[in-house]
């Protein structure tokens, strides 16, 4: 399964592979007393069947709000003001709340950073999974229960028959995240949205969970949108990566291409600002890390022009005036920067 040239042109299929989730020009704004917060401001991306898409960015870049928008779980004062969200061609934003409920959990599932908050503390695990299954698949109680045990086995929870009778607080963080994955996959969704699924976990447990997610993806053919701030995680798990900054998409490419030749200064900044374990062997004394000066601008009053310009070392007058278009710079490689050519040179120079 290779998706090397996945983004040739918009349409229902890319290279014969179906687009299961398609987000087009999504805008989700929060109307607060202090002004409008443009949390997501014109974001488009898609995921192909069986693909893992990484969405990378720092806190407040809009990556989680985009995922919540897909499930239409945006609470007041937030509102999806524009855009289309298509699951197999159906626009979710035109559905009734009733229809939407049958989509959630069935066609799209989501797992969150802190599994404890998304599990009901007073119900046994078996009951929680079985209820999801009964609701969406109309199985009998007995069958749903059997399926719960089967799902727990699938996510490799030891002694699943005994564990279904346990409560969430009796499990460790890693185990809870496995249960969340079991619940999310129990109705064979087309897309799994994973919002920082391993951020709260230790590295050795993170490795287990990521390994499990990829294995299940192969087995069940579910497409995964992996939302994270960790470049290491996306590099090891994703085929294609979207980089977001201040509510906008700034770069999109295949994983190999992005790490080989980043074309947006923000992506470069992210890559150079993290200490690299794989270079530990080659350097005795590491120098300074590259810094991205300043901080993420307030989404309430964004600078005119490129949102990254105030922190960017490549910024010119034009960057501060005009918003750069998100356009293809190389085959399958998109970026929103006027100076992509220079960025590519500097990164390797």
């Amino acid at each position, binding site marked *: 399964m290779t998706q090397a040239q996945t983004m040739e042109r918009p349409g229902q299929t890319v290279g014969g592979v179906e687009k299961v989730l398609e987000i087009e020009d999504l805008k989700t704004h929060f109307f607060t*007393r202090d002004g409008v917060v443009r949390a997501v401001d014109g974001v488009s991306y898609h995921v192909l069947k069986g693909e893992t898409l990484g969405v990378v960015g720092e806190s407040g870049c809009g990556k989680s709000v985009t995922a919540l928008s897909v499930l239409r779980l945006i609470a007041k004062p937030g509102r999806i003001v524009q855009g289309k969200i298509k699951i197999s061609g159906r626009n979710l934003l035109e559905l009734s709340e009733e229809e939407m409920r049958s989509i959630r959990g069935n066609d799209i599932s989501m797992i969150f950073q802190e599994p404890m908050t998304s599990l009901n503390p007073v119900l046994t695990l078996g009951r929680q999974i079985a209820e999801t299954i009964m609701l969406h698949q109309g199985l009998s109680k007995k069958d749903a229960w059997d399926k719960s045990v089967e799902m727990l086995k699938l996510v490799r929870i030891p002694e699943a028959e005994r564990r279904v009778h346990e409560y969430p607080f009796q499990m460790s963080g890693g185990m809870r995240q496995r249960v969340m994955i079991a619940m999310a996959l129990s109705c064979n969704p087309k897309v799994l949205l994973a919002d920082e699924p391993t951020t709260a976990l230790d590295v050795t447990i993170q490795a287990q969970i990521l390994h499990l997610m990829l294995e299940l993806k192969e087995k069940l053919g579910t497409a995964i949108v992996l939302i994270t701030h960790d470049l290491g995680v996306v590099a090891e798990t994703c085929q294609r990566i979207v980089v977001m900054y201040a509510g906008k998409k700034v770069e999109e490419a295949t994983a190999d291409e992005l790490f080989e030749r980043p074309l947006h200064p923000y992506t470069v900044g992210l890559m150079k600002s993290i200490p690299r374990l794989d270079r530990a062997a080659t350097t005795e004394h590491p*120098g*300074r890390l590259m*810094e991205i*000066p*300043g*901080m993420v*601008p*307030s989404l309430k*009053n964004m600078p005119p022009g490129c949102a990254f310009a*105030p*922190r960017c070392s490549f910024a010119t007058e034009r960057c501060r005036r005009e918003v750069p278009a998100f356009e293809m710079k190389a085959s399958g490689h998109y970026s929103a920067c006027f100076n992509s050519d220079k960025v590519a040179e500097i990164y390797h120079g």
Partner: protein
Amino acid sequence: MTATTPAIIDIIEPPKPLSRIVYEFARRNPTVIFGSSLLLGMVIIAIFAPLFAPGDPLALAPARRLRPPQEAYWFGTDMFGRDVYTRTIYGARISLIVGISVSALSTIVGLFIGLLSGYVRIIDAIIMRIMDGLMAIPGILLAIAMMALTKASVENVIIAITIPEIPRVVRLVRGVVLQIREQPYIEAAQSIGTRFHRVLLKHILPNVMAPIIVQATYICAAAVLIEAGLSFLGAGTPPNIPSWGNIMAEGRTFFQIAFWIILFPGLFLSVTVLAINLLGDGLRDALDPRLARRM
């Protein structure tokens, strides 16, 4: 490796003029403004009572007994011909003195005991048992007992109401202190060598103040009501000092023929309590936005 300081880019907002800050606060917290203006009105009435009501609140005029409200007597007269308006205006003094004294006294004493109890764990158990005992004493009984032992006076009323309020403040303060002492900034204060008393005064006390101020307003409102209740029962302010409770108590036998003796002091009492409660609610919302959202 060079030691350079990275440039910090941020947008410095120009300082806002004071009028702008006041305006924004008022727009966000209309209840605080409404409650505090009502209360301020009451305080002005109480302080300048002789200006609002030039007459003598104790002057008897048997010839003009039980007159209904009219131009000369706005709120009518009572069974001794005393002007209800004058008495009500002077009554505001007692209510506010009692309310403010009780809330101030119980807050100060309660804050002190609560801080120690919450921060010094060894004395906590003892203090809290004493507080439980105090809490069990009803204010009204205490007031009656004190009156029987000494004589009816405003001071006794204040003490009688204050004592059962103290444990409530202590519990609140202790709870907040227990929460704050677990905060990393307290640990940080210790690690930079801050002395015990300074940790208590500089780091814990200021963070306890917000809930305490809110609690003080509720105690004030409660004290005003309890004072009226005690006086109504004859266990409060002595009859020679007009208080809203006294006036209403005296007027209760004439309620069917002279409702105004009870209506006007009752109205003032309600407005005062409402004003204080509005102020308290508003302050709670303004000082603790998280709490406001939960309510």
